[in-house]
């Protein structure tokens, strides 16, 4: 199952599930990363981390370690 952190800038994906539990799991969903949401990776920060994505029509930055929790269909 591919995860969000494996995408390159310009690639898109649809969220199929979210791994993990607890606060970060909840926060990711509140920010709109839910099952069925489509994402696009915009770019990576200078040192390759964090990444900037487009989700629910806005720009969000998150680390690759958090992006690894997002499974894509």
């Amino acid at each position: 199952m591919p995860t969000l952190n494996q995408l390159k800038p310009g690639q898109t994906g649809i969220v199929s599930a979210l791994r993990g539990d607890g606060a970060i799991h909840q926060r990711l969903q509140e920010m709109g990363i839910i099952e069925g949401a489509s994402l696009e990776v915009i770019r990576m920060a200078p040192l390759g981390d964090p990444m900037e994505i487009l989700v629910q029509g806005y720009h969000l930055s998150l680390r690759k370690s958090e992006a690894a929790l997002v499974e894509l269909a």
Partner: protein
Amino acid sequence: MPTTIAVIGNPNVGKTTLFNALTGLSQVTGNYPGVTVERKVGTLRINGTTAHLVDLPGTYSLAARSPDEMIVVDVLLSQQAGEDPIDAVLAVVDATNLDRNLYLVSQLKELGKPLVVALNMCDLADKRQIKIDTDVLSRELGAPVVRICANKRIGIDALNAALAAATHGAPTVHVNGPEFPEALTREVDALEARLNHGDHGLGRHVQRLEVFRLLVDRGGYVEARLSQADKDIAGSLDESRARAGAGASLAAIEARSRYAWIRQIVAAGVRKPTTRVTTVSDKLDAVITHPLLGTFIFALIMTIVFQAIFSWAGPLMDLVDAAFGAIGESVSAMLPEGMLQSLVVDGIIAGVGNVIIFLPQIMVLMFFIAILEDCGYMARAAFLMDKLLSRCGLSGQSFIPMLSSFACAIPGVMATRPIGNRRDRITTILVAPLMSCSARLPVYTLMITAFIPDTKVIGGWLNLQGLVLTGMYSVGIAVAIPVAWTLKRTILKGETPPFLLELPTYKLPQWGTVLRKVLRQGKEFIVRAGTIIFAVIVVVWALSYFPHSDEITAMFEAERAKVAASGMSEEEQSIAISEIDAEESGAHLRNSYFGRMGLAIEPLVRPLGWDWRIGMATIASFPAREVVIATLGTIFYLGSDVDETSDSLKTVLHESTRADGSKLFNIPVALSIMVFFALCCQCGATLAVIRRETQSNAWPVFAFGYMTALAYVAALFTYQFTTWLGWGVVT
């Protein structure tokens, strides 16, 4: 009792701008997540009655985990001490980003209070061809929706009318909020019934919203608070959760149900273009957050700021300087020689005047910081810096308070409130005061203009003075990184926090907001010079003037009499007398209470290249860093001939000598003073705020202790190393 309305919304939706437009209360807004860290209240006239408007911190959700979010939940539930119960809620949403913004609105539905939705940034939505039917939206949401454009003050009257209707008992259309799975609803019902049953330990009504959060947010704020009040609650919660979710995560169920409801509403009331429009903001971001260009632009912005501080503010400062020189001269001519003249000329004018000179520079610095905060750059800076900060065990979110601290550490410390984890928050609080705030600027500038040559370097592109200033600002950042790294591995051990940050759309800075910030900072500076600095300087003057022993005066009188009787030419006599006058001033100063204390501490500061006067000036600047300029002014003017008051402080410092007659100041001494002030925590207000924000006495003491130790060691190293390099030789 006046009506109370809470204003709530996601960060960056223009909530504070709308708040200003509604209440007319002068207030500052920014553009990065979490700027509204302080709860603000304003008054509003609706339908001839007064209503209180409470501005809540920006938040994405009511699942509270950070101190900011806890305040929001407490105010909404009328549990916040000192706040009236809420009668209605005004939710501000960003029209260009409705999906995510409506998430918070869907949670507000559960509060059961009258709700008004302000649809902000409608102009931007129009530009992006997002068509919103407010009537459909109102019907679907079950709350009036008003199109506004807060920064252009469009739709404010309509919003006022909607608020008036909502708070004066207009029948609200009852519309159900999101639909949750039956198992979850049933558990919430059961829990609500149990908590509000007579014999539990809370003794107050528990609202449905609170019950919902208790059940869904495992390890969240509501759970922590309620289980503290009633130990029985915690025991059965996990069972209820298992029943409600049937094994699945309740957070996921909540998010899915809410977004399903939102999708339904947006489908009915909003039409978006099918292809994504590339906005100006996107194009800007391609450059500003570009791996190479972005870092270069960051450095470029900083360099421009520091160069501008010198070149823009310079002429104005010379003007103020000259004005104070002239005032000093005319006052000394007006007052008879003696104590009072010395107090006014050596104390007040030399002390306070020398601080006021720096007003133009502080305003220039604030101008740049206000623009950066207002245009949305701060979140990008956090994005660029996250990797670096994550290596220290922090996240890019900690960078925003650090950047704000360049203006002043106090808003910086307060801007740490959106940081959820206490250890991360305290680490950020402890390193934020290392950033060079505007109060350090006068210290840097005085030392730089007096002792660093004004030469062009790198082919005439840059000025050496500006470069040294950039260096001083870098010292704070360079030291903050290892300090944070150490703290997170020792006393504040913990995992690296997650980093989830919205990158808001860039916008042109609102010049009104920028101007307000600059003027406010300028005003604060003048007020401080007129109150705290004035008071410190008068006390310092008194300590360095008295006891003003008659014996010493008599001794020098005798010397002067000797000169008069010696039969020298008139010219020779006047030279000899002015020498005696200077010696007399010095003798009085050394004999003063301040001088005696100074001689006692001199061994401590001598390794830094300082003499007792610099040492005492530094100690006296404990209330605020820029006081050191004032105390240096007073001490050095007192120790010299009164006639020299028209000379600027720069000149006086240049001419000062040590006991053996050698020049007191040289480049190593100036650098050592600057480095000390870059790293020390000579700021009573910062310590008071650290105490308040950490709710502990230990952290401010720790902050002061570690910063002073660091400052001492770094100044020692700077002085010894640069002297060894031979920079101390006067050319």
